[in-house]
């Protein structure tokens, strides 16, 4: 399926641009209101109220935050590497957003219909790590350097169990395309990938928390020891770009979990057979509900668990998660090999 075959190239590009505008608009809106929802839910989980001054129930809070960030002074420390310091947040945000282009939101709605969906996401995750390392390196502050290094090595260690547990999913579908993954798992024995691969799901979930630098693995932003890690020196809209990148990668991870392990936009066949009215729900809404649940889980876990220590974090990744994901992978390989 090459572009420019059925339609002229400029029309195709226009369609792609419209698709990107829709996706970007929806996700920026969601990212902004996830910040609001997070503050509200965190507040209620600690028996507080959360934001409620700006607008009814504080609903205009994200807009107020945006305006505040835009009008804040942008400080570049005197000793920083100026160019790198300015590029780094853009790198983080860009490679977080690009991940959205290979994720199908509907059986027929995907921006870039390429075969290597999962691999591209892994590649962009690797590139996004540079944004964090460079932000830490270029700030010219000791906290930033340490935070950047820690964050980079954390992301590196958690990418291995993440990709190993994804290997089980890919093996099951024998394809890198996320649409194929959904279609294969809907027609499989259990209808969703969680049941043969419960280990892989748990590993993936833990790694998703660590990859997005969220609590309980928010080491780079550990206020108690590293001030704010690699974003110590950032202020104003540049800091906002980091946050936007974090929230969008949170959505990417939630989308990946719900597509790879929970059947994406489809219900498993046994549930759809038992309750036929479920087929009337539009596919995107089903996906969105699953994603919202995982976003809620991200916030819920942040409200509940204390932060890990750095050496605990590393040894957990290498000593527990990698063997677990390998076991999961071998189980899937055996299931496939024996043709169960």
């Amino acid at each position, binding site marked *: 399926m*090459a*572009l420019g075959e059925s339609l002229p190239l400029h029309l195709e590009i226009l369609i*792609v*641009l419209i698709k*990107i505008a829709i996706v*970007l608009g929806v996700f920026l809106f969601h990212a902004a209101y996830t910040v609001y929802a997070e503050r509200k839910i965190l507040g209620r989980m600690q028996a507080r109220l959360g934001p409620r001054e700006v607008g009814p129930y504080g609903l205009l809070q994200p807009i107020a935050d945006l305006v505040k*960030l*835009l*009008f804040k*002074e*942008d*400080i570049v*420390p*005197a*000793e*920083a590497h100026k160019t790198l310091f300015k590029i780094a*947040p*853009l790198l983080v*945000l*860009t490679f977080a957003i*690009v991940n*959205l*282009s290979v994720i199908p939101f509907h059986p027929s709605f995907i*921006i*870039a*219909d390429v075969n290597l969906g999962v*691999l*591209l996401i892994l590649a962009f995750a690797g590139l996004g790590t540079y944004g964090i390392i460079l932000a830490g*390196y270029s*700030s010219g*502050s*000791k906290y*930033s*350097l340490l935070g950047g290094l820690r964050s980079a*090595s954390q992301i*590196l*260690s958690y*990418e*291995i169990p993440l*990709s*190993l547990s994804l*290997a089980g999913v*890919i*093996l099951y579908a*024998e*394809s890198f395309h996320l649409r194929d993954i959904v279609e294969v798992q809907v027609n499989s024995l259990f209808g969703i990938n969680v049941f043969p691969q419960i280990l892989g799901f748990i590993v993936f979930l833990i790694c998703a928390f660590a990859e997005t630098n969220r609590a309980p693995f928010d080491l780079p932003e550990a206020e108690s020891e590293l*001030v704010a890690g690699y974003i*110590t020196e950032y202020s*104003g*809209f*540049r800091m906002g*770009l980091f946050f936007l990148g974090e929230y969008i990668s949170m959505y990417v991870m939630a989308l990946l979990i719900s597509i790879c392990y929970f059947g994406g936009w489809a219900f498993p066949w046994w549930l759809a057979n038992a309750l036929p009215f479920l087929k009337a729900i539009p596919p995107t809404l089903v996906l969105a509900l699953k994603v919202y649940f995982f976003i809620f889980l991200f916030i819920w876990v942040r409200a509940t668990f204390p932060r890990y220590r*750095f050496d605990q974090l*590393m040894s957990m990744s*290498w*000593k527990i998660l990698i063997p677990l994901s390998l076991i999961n*992978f*071998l189980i899937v390989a055996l299931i*496939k*090999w024996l043709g169960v």
Partner: protein
Amino acid sequence: MVGPDSYVPSAYLPVLIMLIVALLFGLGGLIFGALVRPKAYYSLKLLPYECGNEPSGLPWQRITIRYFPIAILFAVFDVEIGLLYIWCVGFSQLSVIGFWIMIVFLLIILIGFVYDMKRGLLDWQRVL
């Protein structure tokens, strides 16, 4: 099928467009911000944060070597994952030896990994 000498990867064009749009979005926000935000710098503001003290020395000192084995192990496992993914995709046409070579491959990698683990290379606090 188009040969390699006349192939245009047009399926990846949307990814490129997405990349450019995302970059433009970030840049646009920064440029708009640069127009409206105040610029009142003085030297005290531009100091790096060090809990209120005067910063002592440059931050680019020698870092601990403990970060380095993680990078090496990551590189090793990344190559392994690359191979694993090819194996996964072509699974249904694999021969018997094709299936078992991957298990052997994983086992050999794991031997090195377990050796490192037992020697305490991954324990952050242990002196080797």
